[in-house]
């Protein structure tokens, strides 16, 4: 049974005054599932992700969590890991202290939290840089540290807001593989917001398209690939699935023009 939580969004709406940022989004995510949300800028992808993470209050509708056994679940401080595009590391803290921060906020004893942070950094192949400051890291390394921080509490839901958006192609591919294996290993439910269709297809079990601006969520497209590695990226299935998602997106662009 996966550790990840199931998520049910029903008619979720977010408004800022008169501006509608998210319109009647309904989505069911299974425990342990990896789902990506793609769509135009301003469609409400990030707003939906933040609403799931509890960073945005819903104007109407609901978002509920449940365990793999179906029991309702109210997420605690450890249950949600959030990885942002810019990494968002505290510039005055070392890499190790940054990764240990979520555990520190929870009051975990110093030795225990530093051991956990070290182990997570080792897992991310970042063992040698724990004493460095964020400014001394490359973009890819910062993202690894941000991922390590998001995963250090062993979250049941991992939210990823365009985490690879500002990275070069080589680093991006390496980190995509890394992310996939980490998510599979942890059994967490993962939601990825991205502009990159290929990234969404190769990583996800399903891809959801937010159509229009503000977007309306289309039924998610199931993804089935022979493999999730470089070979998978070269497969016919990958190309056709990318085309299907692209078609959905183009539809969304036509409808928004």
């Amino acid at each position, binding site marked *: 049974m996966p550790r990840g939580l199931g998520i049910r969004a029903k008619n979720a709406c977010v408004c800022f005054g008169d501006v509608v940022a998210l319109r009647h989004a309904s989505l069911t995510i299974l425990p342990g599932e990896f789902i990506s949300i793609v769509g135009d800028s301003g469609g409400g992808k990030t707003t939906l992700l933040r609403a799931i993470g509890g960073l945005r209050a819903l104007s109407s509708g609901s978002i509920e969590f449940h365990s793999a056994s179906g029991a309702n679940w109210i997420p605690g401080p450890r249950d949600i890991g959030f990885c942002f595009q810019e990494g*968002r590391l505290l510039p005055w803290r070392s890499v190790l202290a940054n990764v240990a921060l979520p555990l520190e906020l929870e009051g975990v004893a110093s030795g225990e939290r530093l051991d956990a942070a070290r182990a997570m950094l080792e897992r991310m192949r970042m063992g040698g840089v724990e004493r460095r400051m964020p400014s001394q890291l490359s973009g890819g390394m910062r993202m690894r540290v941000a991922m390590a921080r998001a995963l250090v509490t062993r979250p049941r839901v991992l939210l990823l807001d365009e985490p690879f958006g500002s990275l070069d192609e080589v680093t991006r591919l390496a980190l995509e593989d890394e992310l996939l294996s980490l998510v599979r290993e942890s059994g967490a439910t993962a939601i990825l917001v991205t502009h990159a269709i290929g990234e969404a297809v190769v990583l996800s079990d399903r891809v959801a398209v937010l159509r229009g601006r503000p977007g309306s969520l289309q039924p998610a497209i199931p993804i089935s690939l022979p493999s999730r590695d470089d070979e998978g990226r070269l497969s016919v299935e990958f190309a056709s699935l990318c085309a299907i998602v692209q078609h959905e997106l183009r539809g969304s662009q036509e409808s928004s023009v």
Partner: protein
Amino acid sequence: MKRTLTTMLPPVLVLVALLTAWQIGVQVWNLPRYLLPSPWLILCSAWQEQSRLLAGMLQTAMAAVGGFGLAVFIGVVTGSLLGASQRLQKGFYPIALLLQMVPLVAIAPLLVIWLGYGLRSTMAAACIVAIFPVLASTLDGMRGTDPGLREIFAIHHAGRLARWWKLELPGSLPSIVTGCRVAAGLAVIGAVVGEFVSGYAGDQAPLGIVIVSSMREARTDLVFAAVGLSACVGFLLFGIVSGLGWLLLRRWHASAVQEN
């Protein structure tokens, strides 16, 4: 070492040139010593009166350091409270702004009434003058906290105190240190002005009293010596605060500079 020399040398040279011009000017125009004593005479008088001046310097330094310390504590705590609550900020900040416009010389007699003559009053005067830059810089730092970093704390359900201690306060440190450097100079001004009104006369008279009593005795040389020493107290305090600030921000600063 070479860099320190190239930084220090130009102002030292200018200072030496100015003092030489002053010395020559006084001798050429034969100016009376009560009007403008020569630098050499000031130095000689200061040497003769060294015990009185050093005791005064110690008193003034105590008032300035004590007042500055109080100002930092009250300024950071108040600035943090105002930064944490929009309502408090709207209610109290305009009043704090108005209060800092009240001239210290006008408040000093009140301090004597409330706290009596001596160190407590002068310390309070130093504190009142120094408090606003610390408060304003703390508030600025708090308001400037990166909203993205706040979200990291919100995701992990961090409490208000943890957010202040681990995010807002360290994030505000560069701004607070700048405020403290301004406050360090102001604290000495506040202490000396406070001493004009509330300082004790006698062997342990602070520099403010030395200045006033020397003026009455037409000992302009001693007035200059006391003014010079109060400036030294200011430099010293400013230097110590800057050094401590550098130590505090060493790691932070390097990263912030590179990140920008």
